């Protein structure tokens, strides 16, 4: 019993990390149909900048806020200098541009902050919480809380606010959105800022657990992307559920089967889901109206 509970805790911890990364994917995807592969780099920047700030003597909270704002600014710059000039290019080209941007950010971070692995103290200490013989770290709860709050925020944003609907409208048909008076340029800038900010928040919350270095972004982006695909790309609910499911599948496979098959099992299940439900678990049905 305590064994199962421990596997579940492990899965939820990892799953919440994936979910937070996956949530970052949704906004840019919703605004432009582009999967932003630099999302992992935003997560990395959140952790690295927080570390750099606190190493420079700032209080951790202030360092975290600065890291999130700086990463959001980075997102805006990326939109301005990499995505906007390629306006009108096919989505695949834009995705390749985001991969290029991610390599650029990774290289820059390596040059400025070096190759060392860093970490900083957890928000509420490292004393594990014991529940029925199993343990979970307080920081995991913070990550879960962060994922849930971001999920609720995004969900309200996309369904309840005019601006959120404007983002969806821009994704659906940029020209039509412009015709009804939506400033699509602003929408794009905003979605990059938000997406980068959420990524950075993820980085701030997970770094005490996963540690951070200039090259952690790629692996996080891949797992976050898999989680988003599983749940349904562009849907905050899908990102949250997909992330948690992916984490749980990994932990349960590692616990009951063998850790050798951990990643394979997770990806086989994702492939199976996508085979029968190409939109993912919560994806919207896409019907092209001509």
């Amino acid at each position: 019993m305590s064994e199962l509970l421990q596997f579940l805790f492990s899965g939820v911890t990892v799953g919440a990390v994936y979910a937070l990364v996956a949530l970052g994917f949704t906004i840019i995807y919703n605004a432009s149909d582009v999967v932003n592969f630099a999302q992992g780099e935003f997560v990395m920047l959140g952790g690295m900048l927080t570390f750099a700030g606190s190493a420079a003597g700032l209080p951790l909270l202030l360092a975290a806020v600065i890291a999130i704002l700086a990463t959001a600014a980075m997102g805006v710059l990326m939109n301005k200098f990499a995505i906007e000039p390629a306006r009108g290019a096919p989505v695949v080209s834009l995705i390749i541009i985001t991969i290029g941007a991610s390599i650029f950010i990774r290289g820059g971070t390596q040059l400025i902050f070096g190759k060392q692995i860093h970490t900083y103290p957890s928000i509420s200490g490292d004393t594990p919480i014991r529940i029925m013989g199993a343990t979970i770290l307080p920081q995991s709860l913070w990550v879960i809380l962060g994922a849930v709050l971001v999920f609720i925020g995004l969900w309200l944003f996309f369904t309840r606010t005019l601006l959120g609907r404007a983002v969806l409208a821009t994704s659906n048909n940029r020209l039509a959105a412009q015709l009804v008076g939506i400033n699509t340029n602003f929408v794009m800038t905003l979605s990059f800022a938000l997406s980068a900010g959420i990524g950075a928040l993820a980085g701030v919350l997970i770094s005490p657990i996963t540690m951070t270095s200039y090259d952690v972004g790629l692996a996080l982006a891949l797992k976050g992307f898999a989680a988003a695909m599983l749940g349904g790309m562009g849907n905050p609910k899908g990102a949250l559920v997909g992330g948690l499911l992916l984490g749980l599948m990994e932990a349960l496979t590692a616990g009951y089967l063998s850790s050798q098959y951990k990643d394979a099992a997770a990806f086989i299940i994702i492939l199976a889901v996508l085979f029968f439900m190409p939109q993912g678990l919560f994806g919207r049905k896409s019907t092209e109206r001509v």
Partner: protein
Amino acid sequence: MKTTLTTTALSTLLALGLATAASAEIRIGATLSATGPAAFLGDPEAKTLEMLVEEANAAGGLNGEEIALVLYDDGGDPNKARTFATRLVEDDEVVAIIGGSTTGTTMSIASVAEDAEIPFISLAGAIEIIDPVRPFTFKTPHTDRMACEKIFEDMQKREITTIGMISGTDGFGASMQAQCKDVVGNYGITIAADETYNPTDADMTAQLTKIKNTAGVQAVLNPGFGQGPSIVTRNYKQLAIELPLYQSHGVASDGFIELAGADAANGVRLPGTALLVPGLLAADDAQKSVVDAYKAAFEGKYSTPVSTFGGYANDAWLILSNAITTAGEADPAAIRDAIEATTGLAGTTGIYNMSAENHLGLDLSAFRMLEIKDGGWTLVE
């Protein structure tokens, strides 16, 4: 007309000058992974070689001849390493090659060096480099098999007979996992649980719970590199596992204690080199002076802490310069024979005793069994 003449005269002079310089210098080649994914290995190695050659030249060179270091950066790419090795042999006409930060690049360079019959000292870990012995290929770092043996020796002393293993799936972890499984039988130890994790995983409590619940496990061994082992150590503490935890030499640095946290790392044992614990070496330790000298020189010049990897380059240079001095001439075949005859040479990694059958020359005493106590290192022996 006058200008042409002057130019011709100048170039003739220049050519003459170069020619004289070339005949009075020892050309040594190196190809290292100073950038790329293995930069954490190659970067301190390149810095070390540059520093040592500079030092040697300032002290009058070897056998009274200036040393010219031809250093290439292969970025960890075996194909590039092969190209650079060929260039070193054919164009740069070096008398010896140091390099191969990774096992992959080493194997590329070794085949070129063997064909050209140029002595080659590798800085990579795999046992395949020197087993079976190739006539011209040597290496300075101890192998992961030796790390396993050192750890199992210590387990044997503590009367541990059943262990669990949790290994990283990266090259380092996978290779050491295989070597450990290969030699574990010699120590009467059985592996009851054998788990793995990805180097980028965020949580290993599932694997550790499985090991913890395996009947009879008395200790846990974690071959791994990077952040994985620190997370394993933290999760170990989180699950309150009371068994001894062994880490590999892959995390033998102060950074590991910092990342895992002094509290979680308390009691962790791992094999490390003398370079890691200069303060703990006895005054009469054969390696003490070498370690102190290298550490002081490197940290003085580059203001970054020394690493084990830079130490490998330091040892390769010691072996090579020692061989050139004993051979008395910079002829590749003579240098090779002199390297093979190296005995009792103290380096930062250990004391080298080469022979025709042993092109590594280190024994288990090259590793010191260390235990982390109160955020610092202590010697177990």
